[in-house]
């Protein structure tokens, strides 16, 4: 990538987020990574992961992620209920004098085992999902899948971020889950730059305002990509103008792009026009990250 060396640690992490679902986070993330030629793509939407459908990576490693869940040895339990009294998540109960564990609400804090006066609690691993690392052209693809029925993808997201951090690649693109709750916060924590993808509707604009607040709260440099632009009103663009939010790219509404995406094809690899569009966007993003570093070093 031209002019991309000499940066801090020779690597930049860009988080792509949106608040609202379906605005084009995965479209933008996948195509930016593909346009970069050498990059890591990290799909943090472990509830509904889609990036792998585009990259079809050749899987190199796979790892089951487990959480620690208490197991009670009834023969040692003396019925003092210290575990039940301790657990703020109500994951333990005494029913007819016997201790019970409700794994689905357990947060794996380890407190029950810590407070048990008779050492009757040990912890065992409960699989909550899987993380994978694969290759697609020059892109290393990190993806995970939460097991249906499990409550939180955060342990998988942590694992994905940790494993992708070790890639000696100049660029890491993080495809965030929708919303602005804990899973998103976890995903943007390491980001050098946040790229917000939005759409013209009032719903898009409302959720843009929410993530704008989030990136401001976390003091992340950011910019907006307006997706699905057409001739009509663009409420997200109006929001950006009104609040001085930098718009660093726009993608026109296009049935052709929609068709490519719906078939799981990477537009930047299929069409010269889109390869150009995403390369330009990538260069803008890299320019923004570099500006931020220059101004940070002058502070």
């Amino acid at each position, binding site marked *: 990538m031209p002019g991309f060396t000499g940066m801090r640690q020779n690597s930049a992490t860009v988080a792509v987020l949106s608040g609202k679902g379906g605005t084009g986070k995965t479209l933008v993330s996948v195509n930016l990574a593909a346009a970069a030629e050498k990059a890591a793509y990290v799909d943090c939407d472990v509830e509904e992961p889609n990036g792998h459908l585009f990259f079809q990576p050749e899987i190199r490693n796979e790892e089951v992620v487990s959480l620690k869940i208490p197991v009670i040895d009834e023969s040692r339990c003396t019925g003092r209920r210290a575990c039940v009294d301790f657990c*703020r998540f109500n994951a333990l109960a005494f029913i007819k004098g016997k201790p019970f564990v409700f794994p689905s609400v357990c947060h794996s804090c*380890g407190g029950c085992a810590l407070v048990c006066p008779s050492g009757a609690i040990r912890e065992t691993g409960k699989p909550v999902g899987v993380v994978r690392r694969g290759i697609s052209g020059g892109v290393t693809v990190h993806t995970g899948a939460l097991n*249906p029925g499990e*409550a939180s993808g955060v342990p998988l997201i942590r694992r994905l971020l940790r494993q992708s951090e070790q890639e000696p690649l100049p660029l890491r693109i993080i495809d965030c889950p929708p919303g602005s709750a804990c*899973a998103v916060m976890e995903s943007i924590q390491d980001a050098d730059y946040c790229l917000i993808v939005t759409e013209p509707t*009032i719903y898009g604009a409302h959720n843009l305002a929410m993530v704008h607040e989030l990136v401001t709260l976390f003091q992340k440099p950011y910019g907006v990509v307006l997706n699905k632009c057409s001739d009509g009103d663009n409420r997200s663009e109006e929001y950006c103008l009104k609040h001085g939010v930098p718009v660093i790219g726009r993608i026109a509404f296009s049935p052709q792009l929609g068709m490519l995406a719906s078939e*799981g094809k990477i537009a930047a690899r299929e069409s010269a026009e889109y390869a150009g569009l995403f390369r330009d966007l990538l260069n803008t993003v890299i320019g923004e990250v570099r500006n931020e570093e220059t101004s940070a070093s002058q502070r």
Partner: protein
Amino acid sequence: MKKLLLLSGKGGTGKTTVACALIRLSQAQAYADCDIDAPNLHLTMTPAAPPAREAYYGMGKARIDPERCIRCGRCRSECRFEAVRLSGGDYHVDPFACEGCGVCLAVCPAGAVAIEPDVAGELMLYADERAVFSTAQLKMGGGTSGKLVTEVKRRLNRAAGADTPLAVLDGSPGIGCPVIASLSGVSMALIVAEPSVSGVSDLGRIVKTAGQLHTPLCVCVNKADTNPAITKQIERFCEEREIPFLGTIPFDPEAVRAVNGGLTIADVDCPSGRAVRAIYEQVVRLLGLQAGSES
């Protein structure tokens, strides 16, 4: 009271757009937004009167008193959430990482830790003579979203009369805690799918999740004409699993105009509006309801 929940797995398939139309067509006297992470229902179904607001308290957050702290570091080594940080020689808790479990409180030998109440969001209940609408907004970066969804539903149940025939609940994307919390106790979930490889994969995962909770399901496809082949595939997927397939909604630029104009697609004579009426009739039939008199 029958409860219909809108879900999608994938975000942005049109849950809220369809939910608003169904609320309008059924003249629902009770509705709620369970997408507390990015609520949008209030933007279209805006009640005239301001809501009754109530702070939502999450799990509480640990705080370390630097005066009493003896700097032994046990809280930091025992915390599974990496929420205890050491900076400038002092231990302090990162409120975003803290889950309020109380392990630090239990292990602190100096009594320096307290778990303090934490406002994790805001609940809003709108009520007038026609309808009650329960919604909430989770605080930035907040956790415990499942509990907040349960609270939104509890307030809706309490406020709606027992003879209310139908409540429409707008859900959130994904398959995690808010979705699981929204599924409990509903009569049926309508999944709004999208004809794309992503949409198909996400549909499979939400069907699996809802199946574990034994929730009756039905499916419709939005923007169906943007990829007819995949729409067919979704129809077959439903057939194979004996999930009622309620029909399709075409891609419709009028829908964006309606939404941006504060209207539902059922308020405008447009292709998506006509399609959603046909789907509404199927919903009425499946739930065994009387169709609302459309005005």
